[in-house]
């Protein structure tokens, strides 16, 4: 009886210790880009890893018609699809500099409100995570390569990099232009004297 109680107590202790252990040891580091965990994943299905936009635009046929999850920066503009009411095209650009590329994503008009900034020269667009169906050659859109979004989530807000006017940046240009103008005037004076 005593030994049974002891073993039960040991089991309970082991369970408490196991529960108290940090989960990081069991899962890969969240910062490890090679093993990105989807924090939005529902518990009723398997894990879905981010697919590289680079792989998709390089026409990997293994992805054709499959559900993919891509994360990228929204660049350019939201382009309404006039032939498919309630749908808008976004362009998602890869955030991985070593694997660049961009792909068209068809989203619901309502999802466009998630985008606060569109990537451009002085802007970093909203980072979106899109789960949808990849089409190497879309039968609904004349054979173009695209992703039809099922769910869209904003991961990071966009940023505008306001560039401050700094006169010092223009000084070298002004000096070189002044030298160029002096040379041009010198040429015209020499030509006039020659005539």
């Amino acid at each position, binding site marked *: 009886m005593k030994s049974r109680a002891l073993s039960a107590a040991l089991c309970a202790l082991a369970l408490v210790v196991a529960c108290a252990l940090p989960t990081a040891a069991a899962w890969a580091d969240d910062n490890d880009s090679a093993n990105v965990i989807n924090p939005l994943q529902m518990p009723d299905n398997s894990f879905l890893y981010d697919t590289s936009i680079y792989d998709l*635009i*390089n*026409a990997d*046929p293994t992805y054709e018609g499959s559900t993919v999850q891509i994360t990228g920066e929204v*660049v*350019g*503009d*939201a*382009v*309404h*699809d*006039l*032939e498919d009411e309630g749908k*808008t*095209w976004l*362009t998602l*650009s890869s955030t991985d*500099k070593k694997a*660049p*590329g*961009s*792909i*068209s994503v068809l989203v619901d008009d309502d999802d466009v409100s998630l985008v606060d900034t569109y*990537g*451009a*020269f*002085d802007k970093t667009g909203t980072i979106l995570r899109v789960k949808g169906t990849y089409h*190497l*050659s879309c*039968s609904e*859109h*004349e*054979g*173009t*390569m695209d992703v039809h979004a099922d769910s869209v989530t904003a991961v990071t807000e966009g940023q505008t990099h306001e*560039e*401050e*006017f*700094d006169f010092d*940046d*223009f000084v*070298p*240009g*002004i*000096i*070189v*232009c*002044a*030298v*160029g*103008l002096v*040379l*041009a005037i*010198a*040429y015209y004076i*020499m*030509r006039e004297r*020659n*005539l």
Partner: protein
Amino acid sequence: MWQRYTLYDVRVICHYLGVLIQYTGLAMIIPFVTALIFSEWEPASRYLISIGLALCLGSGLRMLRIESGRLNRQQAIAVTVFAWIVVACVAAVPLSLTNHYNSYGDALFDSIALFTTTGLSIMSDPDHLSIADNMWRFAAAYAGGVGLIVVGMSFGLFGRVSDSSLYESEGRSDHVLPNVVETARFIALFSASAIAVASVILAIALTVHGIEPVRAALQGVWLSIAGFMTVGMTAPSTNIVYYHSTFVELVLMVLMVMGSINFAVQSEILHGRVGSLFRDTEIKAGIIWSAVMLVIFIFALSASNLFNSLPDMLRTGLFNFVAAVTTTGFTKLTSSQLATIVPSGALLVFAIAMAVGGSSGSTAGGVKLKRVAVIALSAYETLKSVASPQSARLVTNYHHIGRRRLGEDEVKSAMTVFIMFVLVYIVGALVGVAYGYDAVSAVTESIAMASNGGISTGITSADMPALLKVVYAIEMWAGRLEYVTLLAVGIKIFVSLKPRAPKRLRQWRKDRSR
């Protein structure tokens, strides 16, 4: 015997190149002002430095010969040949100062692609390029499409010294007006007018698609330039797919066709002589050629499972085909789609369509339909002569801005250019194959470069071998100049650099030949 370039020739050539460089610097005021309007201070400072550098270099070169003097034919062809490379070098300076290129060489590659209207780019992350830089790229493409010498002439940069040799050395032979300067002005004005009208239409269309009015207006202008000048590039990285618009594609198809028709023929139409369009042998040849190739292309495409329905296939297939046959290079299919799922037969049709190209005296590249028609007529004449009595004297006429007789010189010239193009296509393809690329892709890429067609199968990228970049850049440059002028200047330079034989030896040779 080849005539040597003298030091005097070099000074005169440098003087005129200096003029072009100075005005390239002044043209940079367009992106500079754009940068100021949109508060893009970093690009503004880059363009200010570039303007200054161009003014310094241009003025320095002009000083090599104070009195410009009249350009002779030999100097004119050298000015034309070097203008394209020198202007591209200067135009690449502000682009190379961005973080979108790995090196100045990469920026120069893009600059050459812009001026030659090839339109291919090895830039990284084009979606974050400044408005000013995009404005400069499309301005360069406009100047290249019209022709640097034509632009120079229309602005009077060559003053009263220009004659037809300067105009003709850029691959143009048809005179819209009796005076070449007036002809150049007509071409520049006509192109600008067509682009202006199309810009308004496209800007409205893009606004309807929900794009902000200012961005829609800018993209409308850029798309119009890219369409009419048969450049085929867009500001967004996904090319024409970005817009997902049938109407935009339709407007661009009209622009591409207009841009690839001889300006002289378009002038005839403007003057109410519409009949000349349908009588023109080159246009007729173009219609027959395009129809045959389109049918083959559609059949080749139908072998793939790219499209679900015939209307879809016709819409996308037609757009891509028009972009190829006019050597524009817009594409609804990504380079990876072209390389993987598009049947190699369809890709080959693309390549052949680009290789032949559009009309002579237009913005299109390639061998040109007129030359193909002349060679075909000559072949027909040969066959007819074999079947005719020995005493028969055969004369073949054709229509091209009036009725013309097929001459021996014309056939010889057409054959020479045709052979040159084919040789360059082959050499470029062999270099690609030697680097291990797929043969069909290498052939298509080489043709896309030399014909200035610009449809890539994915070989062209910042990571491609340096030698291939050089070969492709030369192909673009030589293809735009249609080889004859370039080769003539090359041989003349070689002869000029070869040391002269001693005077006594030359006298002895002279005496002996007597």
